[in-house]
């Protein structure tokens, strides 16, 4: 135990050199051992090389492997190598390692940078196409499941639907209200600043009420629900899949579609219009607070002006979009949840995708609907 750092003592005699490894040759000193062995190979050696292992007592597989490799390399160069005084333990372990020698046969060939990028681009494109196909086919399955549920109402899981409505809807009311009030305040503040230049600041109320009811209320609700509920659905279904709970359902003759997807789907569709309504009211409240303080508009006048500005059609445009957005979020999040495969990393990837795809599709649908509604003149 006197010397702990690995080193090799060298004795030269005319036609012969003796190497005496000393110290600890273990994984913890593998860095130093490797350097030692490399240095040994740098020098030119006489025809006879002797390794005296009498002072090598502390070693493990990495130390033996490096020493054996060095000996082999020296032999390959045409030197005669003799190993002396090796301990019993060294010999057994060394002969064992010989049979475990790696062949590197199955290691993949490294690709060039450009080749890698091209392969990746191809993979991403193909995966995207498959994703779209799978999502559409999942949509089809949900529709079929929905119809069979409606035809056999006994299959509907009412308790589960109500429980999900509470989790997705009631529990989301505080955050949605706060966000909407804040948005109403911001819209009113910014609108008033611009409209004041034309002396038309009283139209701030029109701006806030129309934009809130038609677009902003439902969009912020959908974005919040995609982040809050979509991610939780995906993570939950994903872990259930990893735990083989989905397999268990299948073997019990229960379809995951009926038990897991349809209740969440229906709960979200039912709850979204209600949340959108909450968001509308909260947004109007926020706008009202702002105009009350900055324009001195009394609450009675504010309500009167809002009623004048908003048509019933405008209100329904916002509310009618809600179930559609709920359906999009539910389908995307269930779809991604059931796509989880085996690993913890995959849960993370699918959850991220669920939120991103949910928000993307909701925004896309909103843009298309805006064009549609303006064409038919609502």
């Amino acid at each position, binding site marked *: 135990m006197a010397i702990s750092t690995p080193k090799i003592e060298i004795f030269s005699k005319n036609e012969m050199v003796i190497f005496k490894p000393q110290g600890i040759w*273990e*994984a*913890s000193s*593998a*860095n130093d051992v*490797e350097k030692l062995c490399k240095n040994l190979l740098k020098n030119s050696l006489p025809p006879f090389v002797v390794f005296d292992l009498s002072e090598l007592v502390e070693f*493990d*597989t*990495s130390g033996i*492997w*490096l020493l054996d490799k060095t000996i082999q390399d020296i032999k390959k160069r045409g030197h005669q190598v003799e190993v002396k005084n090796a301990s019993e*333990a060294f010999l*057994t*372990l060394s002969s*064992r*390692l010989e*049979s*475990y*020698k*790696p*062949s*590197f*046969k*199955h*290691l*993949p060939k490294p690709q060039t940078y450009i080749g890698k990028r091209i392969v990746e681009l191809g993979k991403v494109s193909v995966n995207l196409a498959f994703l779209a196909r799978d999502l559409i086919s999942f949509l089809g399955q949900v529709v079929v499941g929905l119809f069979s549920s409606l035809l056999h109402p006994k299959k509907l899981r009412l308790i589960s639907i109500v429980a999900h409505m509470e989790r997705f809807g009631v529990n989301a009311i505080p955050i949605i209200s706060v966000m909407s009030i804040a948005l109403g305040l911001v819209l009113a503040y910014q609108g008033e600043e611009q409209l004041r230049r034309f002396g038309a600041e009283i139209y701030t109320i029109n701006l806030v009420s129309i934009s809130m009811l038609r677009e902003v209320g439902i969009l912020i609700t959908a974005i919040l629900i995609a982040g809050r509920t979509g991610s939780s659905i995906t993570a939950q279904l994903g872990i259930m899949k990893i735990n083989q709970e989905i397999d268990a359902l299948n073997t019990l003759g229960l379809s995951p579609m009926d038990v897991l997807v349809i209740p969440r789907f229906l709960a979200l569709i039912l709850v979204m219009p209600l949340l959108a309504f909450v968001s509308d009211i909260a947004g109007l409240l926020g706008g009202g607070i702002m105009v009350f303080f900055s324009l001195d508009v009394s609450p009675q006048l504010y309500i009167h002006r809002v009623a004048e500005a908003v048509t019933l059609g405008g209100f329904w445009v916002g509310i009618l979009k809600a179930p559609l957005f709920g359906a999009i979020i539910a389908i995307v999040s269930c779809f991604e949840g059931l796509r989880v*495969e*085996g*690993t*913890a*990393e995959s849960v993370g990837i699918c959850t991220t995708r669920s939120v991103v795809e949910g928000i993307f599709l909701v925004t896309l649908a909103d843009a298309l609907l805006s064009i549609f509604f303006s064409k038919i003149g609502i």
Partner: protein
Amino acid sequence: MADNDPIISIRGLVTQFGDQVIHDHLDLDIFEGEIFGIVGGSGAGKSVLMGAILGLVPAKHGIIKVLGKRTGNLERIMKLHLQSHWGVLFQGGALFSSLTVGENIQIPMKDMEHMPDDLALEMALIKLKMVGLEEGDFYKYPSELSGGMVKRAALARALAIDPEILFLDEPTAGLDPISAAAFDELILTLRDSLKLTVVMVTHDLDSIRRLCDRLAVLVDKRAVIGTLQSLLNNKHPWIREYFHGVRGKAAMAGLME
């Protein structure tokens, strides 16, 4: 450390969760080079005992010494760098699912011992073969492996930096008898060639008979320690039932008087 000092020594260990006492002043010594089995009923605290040694479960009272150094909690163990002296095979393998088998095995080599990349690659391939896997399994993900292969890959990770002590938590649970027997042989050859001390929690009576030099049976919150032969003659009702029950009799056939 003198030669006959225990490699792991536990004195007066008390562990409890809330009001539930798991170990009540438990004493235990494990010596270098032996294969030490820990058995006991479900909930007797086998895995908790292992967790306490590894610093994963806090001990309420008592002294735990590993390699002559007092441990106790994870911070102390980190400071003493004890992790590079032991390898742990968890019951479910606990391979990192987002890494390949090869990366899993290289983690202790690269992150704990800072081995150079090419050496870590070679050593990982050697360890992979040592536990009976193919080089082709190097780039597989844990989710692509069968139960037995996961155990082997996890064993390769536990052996990555040639630890002095190997902890095994139910190594043969969930393996078919042929794989289980092969695993037993593997542990024996590894112990003999790598000079390991093996601490294993197990229920497998065949493994106990084949492998264990000494056993600790956890009953009444303490450990009853002895060789298999001496425990066979123990009068404690649970121990009698364990070794002389239907399964025990079949596994221990020929050992009993």
